[in-house]
């Protein structure tokens, strides 16, 4: 592997305006094309520990392996997973610790993304931002299916639940519901953004695109601006980003016609009465029938008593 930096990335991470500890970890190796964001899960110091272990193990494993990128990524993440699990078994205060992560390997013009959980990888191309990873969360799934808009997903009460993680149980590299891998060409005019959910919970894709389109050749300032924008929104989470522009990446000036709108409702004819009061009437009828039956039973019992 060459030692000259092939890529020129920018990273930024911050605990956020309301948290004292940062359970996120970011990593960028421009010379070898390795980019990683990790978001630790678990109480107190456990989330931070999990993220730290994942970073260390993945780094070590990726350095040793020479297999194809997909295998390297799977093995490295599995090794991190099993190490986190092993440590959590040993120490009561680390019990249940885990993390979610997104790992990108750039090999020439080939991009391999390995992903577990709800951190994200975006591809920026000709001014449009597209999500390359699917969130392993119920809300993320609904958003990908088009059943929730981005705004609805951001406001959803269950948006912080994930159903895949690194570290909560032992795993095999090729387990089907563990590491999600995507492999695609990386064109020189494209850019990549890896981020934890601290960013995407408070900024829409359009807003993220706007910040990136202010790129002036300094990837570090894009990364810093994104974290700053997220913090200004007053989120409750840690925020981390890795921004990797391709060699020919150039921002596209914002289209003036687009304007953000939220919570749209339109005038519609009023609902018919049976739609609004239907259930009340049904219950009333049920009550009447029950009352009649009770009266009938009482009368029957009384009648029987009189006969005796």
């Amino acid at each position, binding site marked *: 592997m060459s030692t000259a930096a092939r890529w020129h990335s920018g990273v930024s991470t911050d605990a956020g305006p309301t948290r004292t500890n940062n359970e996120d970890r970011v990593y960028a190796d421009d010379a070898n094309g390795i980019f990683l964001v990790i978001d630790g899960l*678990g109480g107190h110091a456990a989330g931070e520990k999990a993220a730290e272990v994942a970073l260390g193990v993945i780094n070590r494993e990726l350095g040793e392996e020479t297999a194809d990128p997909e295998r390297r990524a799977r093995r490295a993440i599995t090794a991190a997973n099993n190490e986190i699990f092993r440590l959590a078994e040993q120490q009561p205060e680390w019990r249940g610790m885990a993390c979610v992560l997104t790992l990108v390997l750039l090999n020439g013009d080939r991009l391999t993304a390995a992903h577990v959980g709800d951190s994200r990888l975006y591809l920026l191309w000709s001014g449009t931002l597209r999500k*390359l990873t699917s969130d392993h969360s119920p809300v993320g799934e609904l958003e990908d299916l088009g059943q929730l808009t981005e705004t609805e997903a*951001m406001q959803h009460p269950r948006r912080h639940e994930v159903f895949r993680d690194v570290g909560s149980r032992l795993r095999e590299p090729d387990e089907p519901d563990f590491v999600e891998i995507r492999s695609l060409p990386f064109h020189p005019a494209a850019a990549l953004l890896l981020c934890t959910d601290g960013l995407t919970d408070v900024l829409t894709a359009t*807003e993220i695109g706007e910040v990136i389109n202010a790129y002036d050749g300094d990837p570090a300032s894009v990364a810093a601006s994104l974290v700053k924008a997220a913090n200004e929104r007053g989120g*409750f989470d840690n925020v981390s980003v890795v921004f990797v522009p391709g060699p020919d990446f150039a921002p596209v000036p914002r289209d003036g016609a687009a304007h953000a709108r939220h919570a749209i409702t339109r005038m519609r004819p009023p609902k018919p009465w049976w739609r609004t009061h239907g259930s009340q009437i049904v219950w009333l009828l049920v009550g009447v029938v029950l009352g009649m039956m009770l009266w009938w039973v009482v009368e029957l019992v009384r009648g029987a008593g009189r006969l005796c």
Partner: protein
Amino acid sequence: MGDTPAQLRLSGQVIISELLRNMELGAFEMAYSVLLPCVFDVYLHPGDHSRLAGVFDLIAEDAKRALAAQVARLNASPRRIPGLKRRQAKDYRIAAKDWVVRFLVDPEGSVPPGDIEIHSELSESVSPGFQGTKTTLMEREPSVTAVHTTGTRVDTRKLAEPTFAEIRYEDDSGPQVYLVNQNQIRIGRGAADEPVELALYTNDEVSREHLHLRRDAATGQFYLTDRSTNGTWVDGSRLRRDVEHALPERAEIRVGDVLTLLFQARR
């Protein structure tokens, strides 16, 4: 509703009742309180807008009173049924000190005379106050069906943006669906100095602006123009460059020798 011409005439009562309805639809429920939208943009047909221009302040004032009264009603102690345990009532409130009601001309021509469209926000900031919190781990496997959201919003969103056509394709970033809701769409690789609406993530066999899709707003008919170096084919036959071709309702558009767009017009 005595007089018939009033059918198309927008009344103040309608505006107020729609604002109230919108406020309740936009409620953002939290653990102990329910946040209601307090910034309302009311879009009107240009005719209605100019007719009412002089009295917007008065309508806004009346609307604010009605909104405040509605919040008071929502906060009033719920009727109690003896013996029935009720959950503790949540506090209804707004994120700002006062309401903001603005009247704007509908810029998209989608609001007919006598109709209104309301966009509301939870706070004065550009977007609602999203608050990120810590990710938590689920103890179980996914069950997507267990998550429900209010159907109204999804419905209204679909109404707000009419989709004229759908384009399905697969580029280097995977399968994609593009919904056409404009009358002019430029399609190609795009570039900083040549922005396109539909940016195909692919190699330079595809031109930066490869083809151009136009919809005749009056008839709904779509037309395609090839602007590329390497050519465009519709259902197997190559288009002449820079000449507009009428597009059938359903078409397979071959872009260079690289990818295929499946075009489907929507009625």
